[in-house]
């Protein structure tokens, strides 16, 4: 097959000038070589800062290599006369849709690209309409771009790229802000366009589920390709994948956990699809005739649950009562638990959490916090300051709110506002920094010099330092790479162990299932269900009714169990488990109990 992108030993550095006039070259791509075939679906994976986005820019001639060569459609990107031809046929969609929207009205923005290409009118109109239909926002054509939700904006950015009728579509973390249902919808649109139009799709992503759908994966580390292969080849090597700062897609993760327990070895051809993984698990278990497995861990018993926060009949509407954001919300939060709040984007999650520390005051209903035999109420003006100190709110992308000269000062900001003594401030800043894993040397740096993940932790520390009883985290892992996510959830688990009550807002159902004690589903401004994750997420019917996606692990484990029940009659399985490790053991236990009953039955017959 013809290769549309050929990179050979490409090198590229960003040139920056320091305040003191010194010029510094920061190497972003360092001897990178790859080939991408026409019509293929390629994933570029790798930690943040590894050079993935630079690679996208080098393909789209937004940057030109310092050394080596980059050929796109057979043309060297350094060719000054030809590079427009490449750019016209290669569309890029970047991570933050807000910074790509040029037009005020949706259709004006979609038209921006083809207008630049000089597409004449009847065709131009048709392209705009088709692109809007392709991503499913045709009915929003006349809306103002600024009034769209995050997910809709992301679709708009993609429509703008599609309207250019490209041969190569590069998606640079373009699905990161979509909720799981919209993401799946979008990925099927991309798949359809690829097959219909022979589009070459290159996706830069941290989503391993998305990567598993691709034909080919390139892993970028330190500005060069460290691994290359089909998804099953890459993900067959658990150790290498983790070392590269990646994760396994859940179906491969569960398969490899079961293989580990049994002591079987996996080959990449056993992992090519979900179906082959299910078959592999079935064959491994029937062949090994599992008889014993580790006993189930005693379920974690929460210490006596004391109510710490309650939301009572809370309603809030915008535009003088015309748009109801939330309606009659009732919710109790217990001391020491992690409560996840999930729901589609625009369902009212952010409005709800903004009430928890009285950033928004209740229009009707109330929010109450119970501390030290006292009750603080959001509707009492005198309680508000105390409420804000005790309910810490970390908004989405909190790193965009840093402002001080040093990290130390930024963390101490809230403490100064509380009027604490210098020594107490110092103590608390150090404690908070330690809790989020920031070192002493980082405290004296400017917050703007930290890496993305560290910036976020510094912003979190600023809230933690105030020692809130309840910590509300809005999408704490948004935009982080898999390693950053793991670190973030390690911090959250640690905070929970130390007794902080945590409310976690997320659209990632797997994370909600793995880290929450209870899950609250919100839809159209109302509480749809509150339950433990295993019960809530196991009930497919109920989830469908609520239009909430099932965690990928639960969905896959469900399929595995159905297949095992078919071949091993008598297998009884528990409710789904939070992690792949626990689920693997639970599945083996379920099968083992079946073979034991069978053996004892057999004994009776003899």
């Amino acid at each position, binding site marked *: 097959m013809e290769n549309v992108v050929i990179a050979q030993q490409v090198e590229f550095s960003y040139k920056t000038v320091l305040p003191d006039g010194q010029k510094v070259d920061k190497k972003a791509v360092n001897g990178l070589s790859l080939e991408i075939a026409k019509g293929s679906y390629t994933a570029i994976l790798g930690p943040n800062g590894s050079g993935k986005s630079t690679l996208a*820019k080098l393909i*789209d001639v*937004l940057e030109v290599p310092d050394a080596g060569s980059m050929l796109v459609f057979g043309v060297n990107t350094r060719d000054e006369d030809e590079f*427009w031809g490449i*750019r*016209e046929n290669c*569309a*890029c969609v*970047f991570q*933050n849709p*807000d*910074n*790509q*929207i*040029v*037009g*005020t*009205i949706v*259709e*004006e923005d979609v*038209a*921006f*690209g*083809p*207008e*630049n290409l*000089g*597409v*004449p*009118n009847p065709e*131009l*109109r048709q392209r*705009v309409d088709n692109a809007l239909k392709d991503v499913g926002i045709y009915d929003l054509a*006349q809306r103002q*771009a*600024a*009034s769209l939700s995050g997910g809709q904006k992301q679709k708009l950015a993609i429509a*703008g790229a599609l309207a*250019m009728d490209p041969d190569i579509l590069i998606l640079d973390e373009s699905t990161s802000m979509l909720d799981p249902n919209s993401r799946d919808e979008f990925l099927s649109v991309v798949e359809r366009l690829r097959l219909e139009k022979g589009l070459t799709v290159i996706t830069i992503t941290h989503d391993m589920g998305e990567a598993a759908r691709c034909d080919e994966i390139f892993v970028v580390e330190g500005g060069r390709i460290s691994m290359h292969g089909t998804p099953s080849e890459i993900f067959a090597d658990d150790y290498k994948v983790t070392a590269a700062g990646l994760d396994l897609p859940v179906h491969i993760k569960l398969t490899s956990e079961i293989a580990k327990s049994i002591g079987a070895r996996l080959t990449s051809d056993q992992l090519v699809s979900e179906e082959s993984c299910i078959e592999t698990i079935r064959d491994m278990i029937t062949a090994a005739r599992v008889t014993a497995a580790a006993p189930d861990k005693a379920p974690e018993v929460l210490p006596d649950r004391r109510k710490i926060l309650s939301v009572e009949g809370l309603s809030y509407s915008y535009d*003088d009562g015309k748009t109801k954001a939330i309606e009659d919300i009732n919710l109790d939060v217990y001391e020491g638990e992690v409560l996840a709040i999930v729901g589609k984007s625009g369902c009212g999650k952010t409005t709800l959490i903004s009430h928890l*520390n009285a*950033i928004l005051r209740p229009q009707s209903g109330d929010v109450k916090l119970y501390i030290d035999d006292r009750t603080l109420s959001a509707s009492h003006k005198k309680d508000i300051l105390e409420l*804000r*100190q005790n309910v*810490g*709110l970390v*908004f989405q992308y*909190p790193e*965009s*709110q*840093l*402002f001080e000269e040093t990290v130390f000062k930024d963390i101490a*900001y*809230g403490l100064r*506002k*509380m009027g604490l003594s210098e020594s107490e401030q110092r103590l608390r800043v150090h404690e908070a920094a330690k809790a989020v894993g920031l070192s002493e040397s980082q405290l004296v740096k400017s917050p*703007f010099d930290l890496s993305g993940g560290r910036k976020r932790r510094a912003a979190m520390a*600023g*809230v933690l330092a*105030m020692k809130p009883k309840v910590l509300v985290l809005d999408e704490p892992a948004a935009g982080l790479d898999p390693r950053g996510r793991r670190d973030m959830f390690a911090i959250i688990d640690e905070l929970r162990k130390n007794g902080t009550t945590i409310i976690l807002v997320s659209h990632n159902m797997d994370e909600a299932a793995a880290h929450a004690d209870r899950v609250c589903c919100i839809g159209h401004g109302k509480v749809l269900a509150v339950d433990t994750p295993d019960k809530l997420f196991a009930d497919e019917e109920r989830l469908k009714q609520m239009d909430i996606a099932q965690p990928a692990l639960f969905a896959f484990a469900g399929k595995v169990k159905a297949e095992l029940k078919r071949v091993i009659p008598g297998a009884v399985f528990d409710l789904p488990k939070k992690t792949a490790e626990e689920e693997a053991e639970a599945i083996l236990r379920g099968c083992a109990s079946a073979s034991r009953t069978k053996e004892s039955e057999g004994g009776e017959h003899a």
Partner: protein
Amino acid sequence: MLKDISLGKFVDTGSILHRIDPRVKVLMYALYLVAIFMITTPAALALMGLIVLAQLLVARMPLKTVKNTVAPIIPLTIFIFLLNILTIKTGDVIWHRWKITITDNGLERASIMAVRLIFLILSTSVMLTLTTTPLKIADALERIFSPLKVIKVPVHEMAMMMSIALRFIPTLIEETDKIMKAQISRGADYDTGSFLNRIKGYVTVLVPLFVASFKRAEELAVAMDARCYRGGEGRTKLNPLKIVAIDVIVGLILAIGAVGPVVLDRVIRSL
């Protein structure tokens, strides 16, 4: 909070003023600008007020939008009113205490200035920003000033810059709101304390806002590059501007509305 500010925001009600050619609106707006500064008599000002009101009604602007458009400039209006009333010393003294002297001339001038400013904002809004999308305004300006390209004025670039600035106003307002909420939840207080303290408090908002804006600008430039933007040369338009009969008719009516108060003003003054 900040989200309510309507300045620079497009409000689509689908009225006739929304639909007419933006070039007509820009030219008529220029006419109103001149007219508003030419009239000084109360009667003419009152007539102008009625005409601006009629425009708001024709544009079917909700009362709330009108209120939110005027509200942010009230402090400036008061400032200009005070400045005029306190500095103009000509005419008969109508009030005097300590070092403050207010004259009838001063009061008149101050009132006229304040009223003018409010008319100015209202007509800017109703003729342009509230009824016309920024891209259309830019488009109109580019076409109107395109003859200047001959003498190397970067007309297209200026129009593009303006439309992007306008496009990002709602985004920046939203961002400011978000940052303020985050700082409030860390104990910031923007409403109490001395004036100096309040100004200082805004540093916590302005720094992250600036940092984010530079980042936005950088990313937007790359995104525009990626979408093959290379200046005005060879661009086509999704909705090309076309002047039809209705544009001319509405234009004429608007022109009469601008000229009428000026004529009245001249007549009254010549009496």
